[in-house]
């Protein structure tokens, strides 16, 4: 190649790449409204984005995996934590995490109530953007779990509401017949529904995470249902567990860690997102925890 030819090579490469890139940019714009649900881009969501920028959130957290890697990714946080919890958390993070134990703590940001509301709307909008199924596993803030590793991809899709091609089986998966013990099925759901129960609850004695530990739940529940403080409708421990799943605020566990303004921090979406038999399986599993 002589100098003239190499110059032509440089110009041609650059030109072709630029034209292709601009063409794809135009097409991306055509698809943004669907991919990002532009119809749901309310003034609150846009104000929430400005709050996100104003408090420099991205230089600790990541969103869509972009940011500073110093604090958890928040792309799907609105699917893992209810609005009540997020509100209480943003008012005072130190209430939920201990800097001595966790080594890191989010400084209190002094957000106004309106800013918090808008930011939660923004994070809710972000969690619904079609981003090619990332992250590959739910990114939890705390807890130790191996979610869904014993299920086929299609079974995971059924329980998590995400779209996957049917028939895919993760490597090393044990096939499911569907006639398993309801307790086993419930345990699986515990780790794979959206939001995953184990993103907030442990089943180990004394290990309270975002929600209280579920160890010895039946014993605690029967004590509670019999006590005069109880305000829900359930009559027996199993009924109480069912009630707590589909209507978490029916009876609020006291303590600033788990509720505010008589609203439980637990998301109240399970009543709609789970089939009745799935709730049965979860109740069976939760009742079995000693």
């Amino acid at each position, binding site marked *: 190649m002589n100098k003239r030819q190499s110059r032509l090579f440089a110009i041609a490469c650059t030109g072709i790449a630029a034209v292709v890139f601009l063409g794809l940019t135009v097409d991306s714009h055509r698809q943004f409204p669907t991919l*990002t649900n532009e119809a749901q881009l309310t003034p609150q969501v846009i104000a929430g984005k400005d709050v996100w920028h104003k408090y420099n959130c991205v230089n600790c957290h990541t969103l869509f995996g972009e940011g500073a890697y110093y604090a958890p990714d928040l792309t799907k946080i609105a699917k893992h934590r209810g609005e009540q919890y997020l509100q209480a958390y943003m008012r005072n993070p130190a209430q939920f995490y201990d800097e001595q134990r966790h080594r890191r703590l989010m400084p209190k940001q002094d957000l106004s109530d309106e800013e918090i509301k808008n930011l939660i709307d923004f994070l809710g909008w972000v969690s619904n*953007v079609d981003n090619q199924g990332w992250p590959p596993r739910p990114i939890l803030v705390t807890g130790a779990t191996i979610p869904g590793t014993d299920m086929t991809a299609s079974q995971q899709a059924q329980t998590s509401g995400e779209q996957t091609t049917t028939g895919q089986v993760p490597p090393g998966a044990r096939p499911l017949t569907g006639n398993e013990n309801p307790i086993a099925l419930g345990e699986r759901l515990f780790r794979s529904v959206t939001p995953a129960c184990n993103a907030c609850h442990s089943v180990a004695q004394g290990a309270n995470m975002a929600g209280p530990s579920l160890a010895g739940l039946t014993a605690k529940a029967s004590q509670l249902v019999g006590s005069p403080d109880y305000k829900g409708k359930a009559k027996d421990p199993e009924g109480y567990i069912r009630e707590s799943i589909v209507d978490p605020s029916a009876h609020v566990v006291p303590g600033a860690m788990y509720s505010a303004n008589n609203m439980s921090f637990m998301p109240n979406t399970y009543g709609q997102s789970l089939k009745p038999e799935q709730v049965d399986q979860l109740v069976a599993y939760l009742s079995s925890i000693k």
Partner: protein
Amino acid sequence: MRYKSQSVAYWYFAVAMVLFGLQIVFGLLSATKYLGPDPLLYILPFDVTKVIHTNLLVVWVLTGFMGATYWMVPDESRTELHSVKLAYLQLALWVVMGVTAVIGYLFRYGTGNKLLEQPLPHKIVIVVVMLMFLYNVVMTIRKSGRFTTTEGVLLLGVAGAAVLYLPSLLEYDNYVVSIFYRWWTIHLWVEGVWEMIQGGFLAYLLIRLSGADREVMEKWLYVIVGLVFMAGILGTAHHYYWVGVPSYWLPIGGIFSALEPVALVGMAMYAYSAMRRSGLAHPNTLALHWTVGSAVYTLFGAGLLGLAHTWPSVNKWTHGTLITAMHGHAAFYGAYAMIVLAMITYALPAISPARREQGTSLGYWAFWLQLAGMFGMTLSFATAGIGQVYLERIMGLGYLDAQLKIQVHFLMLIGTGTLFAIGVALFIIDFFRYAPRLEVTQDATDPDLQAVPVKPARA
């Protein structure tokens, strides 16, 4: 120094050195915060130290680029700069912009848009400075009537940097769209036009230091430009995988970012063959260390480590972890910090004649300590990132639980970061140790200007 106006470069370099030192202070501070607890939580939280760390990097590297350009263009075009006054005014404006921006960040005055945090007035000043710079360089070349390929590539880089900063001035209601155009500035700077600037300096240094044949060097430079732009422009797609864009960006990002190292291999080969051709004979061997070091480290940090996590099926797991910090540190240091340090080291003996042409022993300590420190930091981030991917993404551990289990890597990071900081401190000390004598020492009318003191090692 051959031209009086080249002395402006010294002041640009001096400012760059101060900012480089500050950048490392904030970097070390950020690194210790990974260990926690953080006694400065309410005075200098991580988000503030991190913003300052990355912004100072961009500002000092650009200051270095500008200084190096003002050094190189008179040399290449064999003329004085168009306007020395304009160059000083530009530097003053730039420093005021940089200092006020950093002070603003201390009080969270910024847009919180990662790497483009500069508030709007600052962005406008940046554009003005870039245009002043471009004008001055273009006018100098026009006046001289001598336009070399290395200058052309450099100019393309500088002009591209100015143009591609413009998308960052716009705001979008849709966060996804704003991410889309944010990368037009960040990615196309770092993996496009800045590489042009690096290529231009590399060619200049290799021609000067190794006496390599200009025709051959320039031909290679065109090939590299073509490869960089082809892979770099479409490689922007590797930032688009998981942010809410159409799925066709995945294969495009995978293929073209896999091609990106080709240009870098070309660059390293180009450096090696240039030296082979002439056989290392320029007296300034320290500058040669930095030059070849930059080419090799670019291949390692930008090329190899970039390739390590750019393929979509891998990136799906590594995206948003410390693996990105690994690649980022090695790539920026190798490609941009080292080429600026190479230009400074090349120019220094001419600026302060008291200095040994071969480079001082302090200078060599600075080189090797920085290299060892940065290699160690890269390894610390890599091992931390691999641990994080395994624990968090594969095992499904919570974010905070996984971070607690990789604390030992943060200790490594602080240790190797300290080593690197010592290397930086030595470089800065060595820079300021000799007072500059900003006067013309070589006769500019010398007809044999190309004959810098290069002795052929092999006859």
